[in-house]
């Protein structure tokens, strides 16, 4: 008897996450990422998007969080017990919320640290760098600047480029739009799409900006209070009335008030 190979690159199966042994943050989250797709993880602040990503990348443990139930598999293999560096070697890299560049290192040094887990020659590293600069031409012009002094958009590019240097199969991208101008957000999502199409990298993307995320993703999951409340293809979600009203801000009837009882009831039902 052997397990049937999973059709998905990444499968998260009913995981529960507890912080500090007491605070239950995820209450049974399941999701799948098919090979070569961009999957969006949507929801409000505190819904558990970041926690889900950190549970997958196992960075959770450094924040006193624990996956207490469920399982996580990458290419059919359990990855819950791996250390972050083992996971990177397997091809899963997380780009953390808030970018987390190495501020005192130059842009190029930042990118080079991304290749830490790879044992490749100098010339291969050079090629890898050039490949990153091809997707992020802006970084090439700023390669010698200290990353801490570059703009927010550039830092986000550094963070994604640094992850790409590990030659990943999959990137866990946490809130790439945070604090960036809409134009820059579009620019970054365009690059994500390009990396997805040309390099075949799959993305699991946590995002509050539902609008942009659904424009670029193939599939989406909506998280509320640590549970998946809805999932579907990007088109399905975009055309869903509830999603429109609660996440895309397209109610149609103008400003909402809590006196509007009908809306309030719907919202309550949605969150229940």
């Amino acid at each position, binding site marked *: 008897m052997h397990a049937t190979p999973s059709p998905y690159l990444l499968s998260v199966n009913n995981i529960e996450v507890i912080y500090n042994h007491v605070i239950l943050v995820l209450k049974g989250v399941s999701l799948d990422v098919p090979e070569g797709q961009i999957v969006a993880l949507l929801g409000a602040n505190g819904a558990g998007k970041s926690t889900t990503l950190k549970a997958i990348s196992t960075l959770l443990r450094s924040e006193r969080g624990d996956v207490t139930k469920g399982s996580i598999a990458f290419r059919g293999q359990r990855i819950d017990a791996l250390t*972050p560096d083992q996971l990177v070697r397997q091809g899963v*890299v997380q*780009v953390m919320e808030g970018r*987390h560049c190495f501020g*005192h290192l130059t842009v190029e040094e930042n990118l080079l*640290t991304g290749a830490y887990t790879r044992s490749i020659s100098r010339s291969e590293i050079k090629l890898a760098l050039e490949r990153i600069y091809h997707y992020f031409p802006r970084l090439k012009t700023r390669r010698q600047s*200290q990353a801490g002094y570059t703009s927010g958009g550039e830092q986000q590019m550094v963070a994604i480029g640094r992850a790409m240097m590990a030659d990943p199969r999959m990137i866990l991208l946490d809130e790439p739009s945070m604090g960036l101008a809409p134009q820059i957000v579009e620019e970054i999502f365009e690059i994500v799409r390009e990396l997805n199409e040309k390099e075949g990298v799959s993305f699991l993307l946590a995002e509050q900006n539902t609008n942009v995320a659904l424009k670029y993703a193939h599939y989406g999951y909506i998280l509320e209070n640590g549970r998946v409340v809805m999932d579907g293809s990007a088109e399905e979600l975009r055309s869903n009335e509830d999603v429109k009203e609660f996440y895309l801000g397209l109610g149609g009837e103008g400003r909402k008030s809590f006196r509007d009882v009908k809306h309030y009831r719907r919202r309550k039902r949605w969150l229940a």
Partner: protein
Amino acid sequence: MEWQFFLEVLVGGLLAGVMYSLVALGFVLIYKASGVFNFAQGAMVLFAALSFVSIQDMGVPFWLALLLTLVLMVLLGVGIERVVLRPLVNQPPITLFMATIGLSFFLEGLAQMVWGTNVHGLELGIADEPFDVGGVFISKFDLFAAAVCGTLVATLALFFSKTKLGRALRAVADDHQAAMSVGIPLKHIWAIVWGVAGFVALVAGLLWGSRLGVQFALTLVVLKALPVLILGGFTSIPGAIVGGLIIGAGEKLAEVYLGPFLSGGIENWFPYMLALLFLLVRPEGLFGEKHIERV
């Protein structure tokens, strides 16, 4: 003759300062990479010097003894990381600091238990005699110490800026979590840092040991490293060097020129005064990394 005397004091002070820098360097390495203020650095200096002379006393030739001590110090550094600090990961800095104080006493005790409490002489083969440079007398030994220190710093600087491992160390110093997220294994990195700190302690131990004799008081050189660190910044290798030079030159000049008015003994407290004044003006030190903040 007046300026020659001044120059002699200045140069003597600068060279003595190099010795302080050596000790400060060990602190900077560990603090930079792991945010731990390692109070036990002085005990490691003593441990290194004591181990070296004791191994030599067994009749082991100089270079082999050096190699053996180096291995011992690196193992000690790695061991400290593994046994004491790793279980304390994610604890507040004060806890880690207390742990290193405890460690300091443990190491002193261990060194004396294993190697005995006798004061040993340590002979590096460089005579501590002055020679004449254009009328200014400079100690050969001080010059040798400065050369060793210079080489050490140059090597470390190259290591940090040019090698993959050095880059990873700086990355860890900058942002632990981000370093983890790109697959840099923190545990290895910290072990390496402690190993390198053990190596620096060995160099400092040999030089200080041959100057003061290998004895318990060697652990007290930590206290002289503190003002150096405050002056130079806790995170900067060049800062440790420049800080050491300023402290060394400052205390000697103060002793000679202010001493007569203040009944002498200035050398002992002057560095701390200097550091205190400095704190008021530049709390991050001369070269300490400023917190980068974009507006």
